[in-house]
């Protein structure tokens, strides 16, 4: 066996160098890795490391780009807002799929619409139901006809800051309800102004009342239909009735739940119910909102616009009945069921027939039955004819 020829002192130096090298390696590794571990946002975040990395630049305020159209595209994403949003666990690149490296591929967009459009199909990946519904909507139809102002997903839902909208049962949270009209107002500000002053809008926006309808309660949310169609108009009484025949809601405000049945019992409502058989045809019979207004609904006892005032009701009637005299509005029983206090003539006529009909038919039936029995008996006894 050959003896190990390296002298002992050199062997020791070799070991010492290896140890020192390992230590330096360790220090170097720590030095490299440590900055990456130091997140610019608070610890305890729900965001992925990937999102955190993007936010090192995108968290900065006033981070803007000006598009060729002159519009300002803000690229600032507030990290705290994102961390509280429903998408906080999702990587940026899950939606921004084209951005895989730095520097980023150039953004080619003429205006803000273009930018939205480029990402509109990202939502479809997880929110296929809602996305499919939007393809059915009046917004989509307008877009297909060339309208460039129609909203896409991100026009109503900012994906970076969107918080939970619904509770466990799927119904809208109270805070989310108040936001709905404000979102629609971005494009439909005229209607929003009317809604704000209406009895529904002032309760929602002023008091946060959850019993009143927001835009989406009547118009739907993702598959919004054209509300100017005959079909919408003919089915609108049932829409209003969803709340206005529910005593759980209406009793709180002292509003009658007889409104649908009294409307259907009257000539206008009867006709509309039958006209629902041909939903595409135009009708000139009023539905709820023809008299009560649609976005500007006031309480019927409003001192200026309320329909309880005879003059206001007459003006409303005259929209379709130009020759109507001052007596005419009393032909409408104001959603009352006739009683001795309200519309007594109608009440007593109805009462009269309640007795008159059985009073006449009863004796008739008795006589006819007796006649049948007698003639059958005679027949059996051998009579040749009745």
């Amino acid at each position, binding site marked *: 066996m050959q003896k190990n020829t390296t002298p002992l002192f050199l062997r020791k130096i070799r070991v010492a160098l290896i140890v020192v090298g390992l230590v330096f390696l360790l220090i170097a590794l720590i030095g490299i890795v440590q900055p990456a571990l130091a997140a610019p946002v608070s610890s305890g975040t729900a965001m992925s490391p990937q999102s955190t990395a993007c936010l090192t630049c995108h968290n900065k305020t006033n981070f803007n780009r000006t598009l060729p159209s002159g519009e300002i595209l803000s690229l600032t994403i507030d990290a705290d807002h994102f961390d509280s949003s429903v998408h906080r666990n999702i990587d940026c690149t899950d939606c921004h799929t084209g951005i895989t490296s730095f520097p980023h591929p150039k953004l080619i967009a003429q205006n803000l619409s273009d930018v939205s459009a480029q990402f509109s199909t990202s939502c479809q990946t997880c929110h296929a139901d809602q996305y499919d519904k939007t393809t059915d909507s009046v917004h989509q139809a307008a877009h297909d006809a060339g309208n460039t102002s129609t909203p896409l997903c991100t026009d109503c839902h900012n994906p970076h800051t969107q918080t939970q909208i619904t509770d466990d049962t799927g119904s809208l949270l109270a805070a989310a309800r108040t936001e709905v009209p404000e979102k629609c107002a971005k494009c439909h500000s005229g209607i929003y102004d009317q809604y704000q002053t209406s009895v529904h809008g002032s309760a929602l926006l002023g008091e946060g009342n959850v019993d009143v309808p927001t835009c989406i309660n009547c118009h739907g949310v993702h598959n919004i239909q054209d509300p100017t169609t005959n079909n919408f108009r003919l089915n609108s009484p049932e829409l209003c009735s969803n709340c206005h025949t529910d005593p759980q809601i209406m009793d709180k405000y002292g509003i009658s739940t007889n409104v649908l049945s009294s409307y259907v019992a009257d000539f206008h409502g009867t006709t509309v119910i039958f006209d629902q058989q041909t939903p595409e045809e135009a009708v000139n019979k009023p539905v709820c909102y023809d008299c009560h207004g649609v976005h500007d609904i006031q309480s019927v006892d409003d001192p200026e616009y309320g329909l309880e005032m005879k003059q206001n009701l007459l003006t409303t009637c005259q929209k379709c009945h130009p020759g109507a005299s001052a007596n005419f509005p009393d032909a409408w029983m104001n959603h009352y069921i006739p009683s001795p206090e309200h519309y007594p003539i109608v009440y007593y006529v109805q009462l009269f027939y309640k007795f008159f009909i059985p009073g006449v038919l009863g004796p008739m039936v008795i006589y*006819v039955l007796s006649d049948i029995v007698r003639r059958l008996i005679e027949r059996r006894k051998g009579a040749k004819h009745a």
Partner: protein
Amino acid sequence: MSKPTNKKLPPARKKKAPSTYERFHWAQRISHVFLLTSFSLLGITGLPQKYPLAAWAQGMVRFFGGIETTRLIHHISATVLMLLSIYHILDIGYKIFVRRVRLTMLPGIKDAIDAWQSLTYNLGLRKTRPQMGRYTFEEKMEYWALVWGTVIMGLTGFMMWNPIAATRLLPGEIIPAAKAAHGGEALLAVAAIVVWHMYSVHIKKFNKSMFTGKLTEAEMLHEHPLELADIKAGIADRPVDPKTLRKRQIVYWPIAGVLAAAMLVGVYGFVGAERTATVPVRENEGPVYLPQTPTPTPSAGTNLAWDGAVGPLFQSTCGVCHGASSPSGLSFETYADAMRGGNDGQVILPFDSAGSPLIILQASGTHFVSLTADQFALVQAWIDAGAPEK
């Protein structure tokens, strides 16, 4: 019943007993066809309208072709019934005033007694049926119910067809009251026809006399024995001599003519005069798309100075990367930083935009972030103006 007349009667004609007796003149039979047709149409187009939520009602209206067509049929049938009523009034008037027939349809105490006796006979409490004349109590009941019903339906129908005219004179509440009466009377009329009329002339025994016009001797004996006796005694008819007839006609026709004209004008007004509803002009709610004008970010205008438009432009567009810790050493956080430049020297040469590396790089389009054309022009102009701070 009829009072014995003092007039000299013509000699009773001796002839063989006829096998049939005329019950209804052809004019009455045609009237009845019009009546049953219009009444049936009125009933089947009217009753569904009383129960709009019922499936059977929806089905019937759909069968007629929709509610507007259903209403049209109802209105046309009502007009036919009104014209028929006018004819009937004039016909009855002629019979009463010109021919002076016996008023056999008038109800009296005997009819009430007949009704009671018929019932007690049916119940086995009497041995024989009561004997009745030309029109039995059942037929009188039918006729007068028809008269009452037609009057009610006509009046209430008029109010509903012409609510504006009706409410000029009457309080508005009369319209829903008319609707209630119209519907109630409709139910009663249809039910009475089914129970009373259909039993009497179809089920009890199919009575063809309203179509053939004739009754046999046997039928007369069973159902109208008192009339048969009058006929055989020769007192049923009251023939009028031609001269008297002429005299009465000359008085009657002009009056009838005037009445007819007035009633026809009434029917015309009923049907055509009022245009109750127009197609309303829908109120214009304003444009649907009315975007909110976003609060404009305070614009520094085109103030060609760092403290004006240029500084904020650099800070927002370039400052994200070119900040204090920028690897290139070039920062745009302050005016001094911008003018100092970076590791490769100054990037902004005052008065010399063409020579400024910043401009050259931007013009090449290769830099990570490009200024827009407007922004580029602004920076160029600023540099050429000496890149002033204020």
